[in-house]
């Protein structure tokens, strides 16, 4: 299946400073791809490049088979964008903010109005349908803008920080909503965010960006496997492990790493089948084991590990020296 979105060595700079620098990635039809990265990583610029609003300095991209730099209108007819700033006209009502752009897209007035009411209702902002949006809250604006991005039933949806500025409850609502929307009609979604939980919840694959460069790209589990070999497990020992216990753990064959936690220890082992030996070793030294649970590294672990690689501590590592990934197994304070 040909990708819905594909970029190759995409570059764009502003006044000599690279905003997107050699970006190569793709998204399959129906996939949710998260662009993760700190402020200024190049997420918004990437969306603008993919929608043909900005032109690349170098490299190319294809969205639904068309090159946005060449045939932007063909791309934009089939995409919907929730921009970072909702971009609503305060003087217009919720429905007008949806219907007027829909008219530009060639949707007739009656259909546009009907869909606008439906969507605003579904997104929980029906109260703003007939009222000027001046004074609407950030969350309400996001929802109206999201409705606008969806009204023409785009095949590709770009969501630039859909939950920024929302309170936790509103953010969760929007994420749940996106989870259902993303699956609909095999729609491809590009989600820009710095909320890792949101990306973890919604995205099939993540692209981690930093200062315009792609740090990593793939499924969160694959990225974690690349960063950290083996399996991690939390051992509940009823209290922080004693030094002797830690030593006993280290002596087990197949244990890669051991770290202290508040209620016991965290071990990294070569594979799941090492765990029984770990438990046996503890029993042998008469340490009670209340639980042993394998733990998949979270997207958060991956993200922080990647960023600590990308922003090396001074002095920077010499070229050629392999960078040691910081282990998520270190005890948290």
């Amino acid at each position, binding site marked *: 299946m040909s990708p819905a979105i594909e970029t190759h060595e995409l570059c764009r700079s*502003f006044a000599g400073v690279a905003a997107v620098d050699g970006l190569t990635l793709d998204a399959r039809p129906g996939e949710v791809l998260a662009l993760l990265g700190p402020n200024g990583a190049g997420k918004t610029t990437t969306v603008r490049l993919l929608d043909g609003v900005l032109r690349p300095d170098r490299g190319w991209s294809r969205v639904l088979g068309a090159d946005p730099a060449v045939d932007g*209108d063909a791309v*934009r007819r089939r*995409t919907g964008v929730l921009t970072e700033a909702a971009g609503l*006209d305060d*003087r217009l009502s919720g429905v007008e903010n949806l219907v007027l752009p829909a008219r530009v*897209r060639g949707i007739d007035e009656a259909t546009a109005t009907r869909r606008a009411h439906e969507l605003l209702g579904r997104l929980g902002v029906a109260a703003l349908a007939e009222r000027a949006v001046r004074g609407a809250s950030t969350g309400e604006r996001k929802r109206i803008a999201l409705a606008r991005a969806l009204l023409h039933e785009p095949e590709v949806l770009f969501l630039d920080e859909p939950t920024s500025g929302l309170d936790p409850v509103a953010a969760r609502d929007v994420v749940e909503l996106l989870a259902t929307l993303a699956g609909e009609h095999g729609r491809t979604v590009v989600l820009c965010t710095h909320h890792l939980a949101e990306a973890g919840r919604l995205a099939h694959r993540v692209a981690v960006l930093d200062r315009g460069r792609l740090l990593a790209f793939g499924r969160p589990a694959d990225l974690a496997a690349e960063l950290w070999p083996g399996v991690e497990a939390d051992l509940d020992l009823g209290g922080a492990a004693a030094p002797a216990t830690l030593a006993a753990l280290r002596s087990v064959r197949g244990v890669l790493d051991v770290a202290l936690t508040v209620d016991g220890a965290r071990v990294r082992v070569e594979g799941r089948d090492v765990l029984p030996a770990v438990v046996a070793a503890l029993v042998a030294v008469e340490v009670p084991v209340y639980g042993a649970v394998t733990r998949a590294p979270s997207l958060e672990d991956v993200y922080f590990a990647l960023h600590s690689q990308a922003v090396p501590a001074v002095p920077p590592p010499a070229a050629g020296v392999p960078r040691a990934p910081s282990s998520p197994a270190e005890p948290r304070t």
Partner: protein
Amino acid sequence: MTGRAPAVDRAAVRALLRRDLVAVRRSKAVVIPMLIVPVLLLVVLPLLIGLGARGAPAPDLTRFLDSLPGDLAAPIAGLPSHEQLVVLVLGYLLAPLFLIVPLMVSSVLAADAFAGEKERRTMETLLHLPVRDRDLFLAKLLGAFLPAVAISWLGFLAFAVVANTVAWPVLGRIFVPTPMWLVMILWVGPAVAALGLGVMVRVSARARTTQEANQLGGAVVLPLIFLAVGQSSGLLLVTLPVALGVGAGLWAIAVLLLGRGARRFTRDRLAASV
């Protein structure tokens, strides 16, 4: 692809135009000056002047008319002396003042359409629509130009009614539109609207807010207003051929400015400046 420019997407332009007009009608800061200025200039002022000129004892205008360029004075000098003042003021001197209306309406609307879009942070939404840069630009131009011409023509209609009514007791006939007025509304007025537009398009590319655009634009537009005021107060006198020529010159400058504006109005440039 052929070398010819693709046809204008009329439906999209119409939809964009409608969006701007619907929004702008709700904007007090835009609507109020657009109503007050034409009413003051084209209804209140001619009413006062007309009543004043009618009530005053007929002054001797021969000396004044002698000082005017021949073809300006000719149609007036031939009139009975009690008619001269009213016809001179309402039929000729006031005509250039009328130009302030299309100039102001088009620049206020253009500032809202270009700089205002940036200020409200709604420009990016437009850039993500499937419309060609050129069609978007065209829609924004028409959104300022058409109302400017429409309002100035409506204003002129109101003026014609007021002027003919107040002058009726003196003249007993309809005297507006004079040829000078026709040149102003049909030729110079639209040119001035286009010029205001051209200036504001240029200025809005730099300005961050509507207010800033209006200030910058005002610096360019104000001298033109002074010229118009100068003419109407008799300091500066424009004859018909001069008015036609001035109109042509204004059109040329406007077309030049708008052409440059169109070339600079690209998505990439706009997106990079939002």
